[in-house]
């Protein structure tokens, strides 16, 4: 079954507002990565976390360091260029390679 449950699946924001996306994991994960996919399909890495929080401009991500079973992506002061589909992906670890399990994505639309 799916190891990564992402919510919400779609979100509409007005410019200047704040919101958050969340991913829950059905098992303990070693790391999480957040991506934004633009209209051309390019997947851009926003954050990679093995624990704690990271911040970059108006974006901030957190990975639950205790049980390692959820992660959040906060968007502050949303801008039109934030529109796109956001994916989280998590790695369980414990084996070879770095196999990521992806959520189904959250389509964000920012309007004036």
């Amino acid at each position, binding site marked *: 079954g799916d190891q990564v449950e992402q919510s919400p699946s779609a979100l509409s924001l007005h410019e200047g507002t704040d919101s958050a996306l969340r991913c829950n994991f059905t098992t303990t994960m070693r790391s999480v990565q957040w991506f934004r996919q633009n209209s*051309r*399909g*390019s997947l851009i890495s926003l954050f990679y976390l093995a624990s704690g929080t990271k911040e970059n401009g108006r974006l901030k991500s957190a990975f639950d360091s205790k049980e390692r079973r959820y992660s959040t992506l906060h968007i502050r002061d949303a801008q039109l260029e934030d529109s796109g589909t956001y994916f989280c*992906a998590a790695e369980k670890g414990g084996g070879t390679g*770095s*196999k*990521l399990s*992806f959520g189904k994505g959250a389509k964000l639309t920012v309007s004036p």
Partner: protein
Amino acid sequence: GGIITQTPKFLIGQEGQKLTLKCQQNFNHDTMYWYRQDSGKGLRLIYYSITENDLQKGDLSEGYDASREKKSSFSLTVTSAQKNEMAVFLCASSMQGWEQYFGPGTRLTVL
């Protein structure tokens, strides 16, 4: 910084055809990956390779072959294209256990 290139950008094939997609990275990363993305959905892992000549199956390997010819390149072959199939194939690379970086994708359409 580095870059991942995928060729071709667009691929149109016929039902039953064997189709090959190529990926090159200059990050000097050990591990490379092939994912498939269907419209409006997340990514699913087809194959990955942790070093040259290594090959590991992902969740979606049936119907595909892959080849890690050298450290910087990883090819994916659709062994028999399915009619009306449409998907984007994304290549990625990483150092073992670290952040993955993605290429721009190859968009496949099968007539």
